[in-house]
């Protein structure tokens, strides 16, 4: 038979740059937009004499940023540790619970409706309460809220992933006479991976939100949330904004790290280029 080789896309190969998926050329328009945005902001604030408590100029924020760098990065680091800890705890718990539920349908039938409902409620509203349960001056209190926030999306998505195996793929495994554990390792886990990473990306954002918002309600004085809250009430708006910038940098970095991990772990997937996906 003539195996006419059909045109196929080149294999996804290459270093980190290719994994992130964009070349310098592709980034250029986005950079131009950022520069234009910051420039416009500066101009409007100056021209319209916008009050500094409403919106400080980018240059003023930059001044506050550079003169407080050491303190800001320290605060950011403390908050990031809370977010990361909460992320690790919440995501691990979510995955373990998902495995149990996917394995035993009865457990799933009893728990899933509540999990889906819990996934839809604004858990962040509980932040003041968890601060009453744990000492808000410790990292634990804030980790807890971050962990609870991370738990539900991971749990719900991984259950869905573990269950979305194609029956034929299981049937083929049966023809090889392998046990459930092997099927789990070789079929269910890889099928669930894209679902898992979708939820991890969501969780990375939620973890930062959880940690910072929870710190608003009485975090230790060397945390981002407590400082944003305090600086805003002390009319130090430039410094509050500089702290928000730090939060953004860490949040985006966290998200990108998870996205990179996803690319590494699911390299088999066809690449669909989407901005911000």
């Amino acid at each position: 038979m003539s195996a006419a080789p059909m045109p196929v896309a080149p294999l996804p190969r290459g270093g980190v740059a290719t994994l992130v998926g964009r070349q310098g050329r592709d980034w250029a328009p986005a950079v131009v937009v950022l520069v234009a945005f910051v420039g416009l902001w500066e101009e409007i604030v100056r021209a319209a004499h916008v009050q500094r408590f409403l919106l400080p100029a980018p240059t003023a924020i930059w001044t506050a940023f550079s003169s407080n760098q050491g303190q800001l990065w320290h605060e950011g680091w403390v908050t990031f540790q809370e977010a990361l800890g909460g992320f690790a705890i919440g995501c691990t718990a979510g995955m373990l619970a998902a495995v149990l539920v996917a394995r035993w349908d009865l457990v799933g039938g009893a728990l899933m409706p509540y999990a889906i409902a819990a996934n839809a409620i604004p858990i962040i509203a509980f932040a003041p309460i968890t601060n009453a349960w744990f000492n808000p001056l410790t990292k634990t209190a804030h980790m807890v809220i971050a962990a609870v926030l991370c738990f539900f999306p991971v749990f719900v998505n991984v259950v869905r992933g573990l269950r979305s195996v194609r029956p034929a793929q299981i049937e083929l495994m049966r023809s090889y006479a392998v046990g459930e554990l092997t099927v789990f390792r070789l079929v269910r886990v890889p099928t669930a991976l894209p679902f898992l990473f979708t939820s991890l990306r969501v969780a990375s954002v939620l973890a930062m939100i959880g940690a910072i918002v929870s710190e608003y309600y009485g975090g230790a004085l060397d945390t981002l949330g407590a400082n944003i809250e305090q600086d805003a009430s002390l009319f130090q708006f430039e410094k509050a904004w500089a702290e928000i910038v730090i939060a953004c940098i860490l949040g985006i970095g966290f998200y990108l790290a998870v996205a990179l991990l996803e690319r590494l772990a699911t390299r088999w997937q066809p690449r669909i280029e989407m901005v911000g996906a």
Partner: protein
Amino acid sequence: MNAVSIKGVSKQFKGGTTALEDIELEIEPGEFISLIGPSGCGKSTLLRIVGDLIEPSNGEVQVNGKPARQARRDHDYGIVFQDAVLYEWRTVSKNIALPLELAGWDRSRRQARVEEMLELVELQGFGEHHPWQLSGGMQQRVAIARALSFDPALLLMDEPFGALDEMTRERLNAELLRIWEASGSTVVFVTHSIAEAVFLSTRVVVMSPRPGRVSRVIPVDLPQPRTQAAREDPRFFELATEVREALHLGSADAPSLAEGVA
């Protein structure tokens, strides 16, 4: 010892549908058997019972002289479905190597065998591709390579080319015959297509529905090895007509085409 021995097999599904009733079939080593019949005649169910993927309600199946369950545990058969059922996170090579991995072959032995199989199905150079990068026909060839990789005595195929276009199907039919001759294994092949059944088989088993039964077994005496030319042999048409008539006789509610065809 027969390759497959089906004795008094019946299957009732929950709810009372009788999918199969009292099936008797003996398949000798090296035969190429097609199961053909209309939808609902239980041909796929019968194939799965041979593979011990479904349990019969009554009767007994032996593969290579042992109970079907033992044969499955011993990896005595390879199976190919209508859909290629590739694991999309594995490369072509790793898909083919999967049964070898499960059977505990070491890496170098696996690699050597995968190379052989890629050559057999003419996919050299595609080992490192992922399934989504291949056409439907190529994916199905990977599935065949995987089913044959561990040299099973029996190959079970459930409408493996059903989803492919006619051209690709005819090409893969010829290729399957070449592989069958080279491997010497026994094949049980489920199909809807009369032409495919006649072209491939040593015997065509015609089944009728509600309940599923074997209505006729038609030996195919076209010369071996067969090439595409066999499709234009007058004998090919005679046999195709015979299978067609058996199919229509089998389904009582359909009008007989016997006069029209003869």
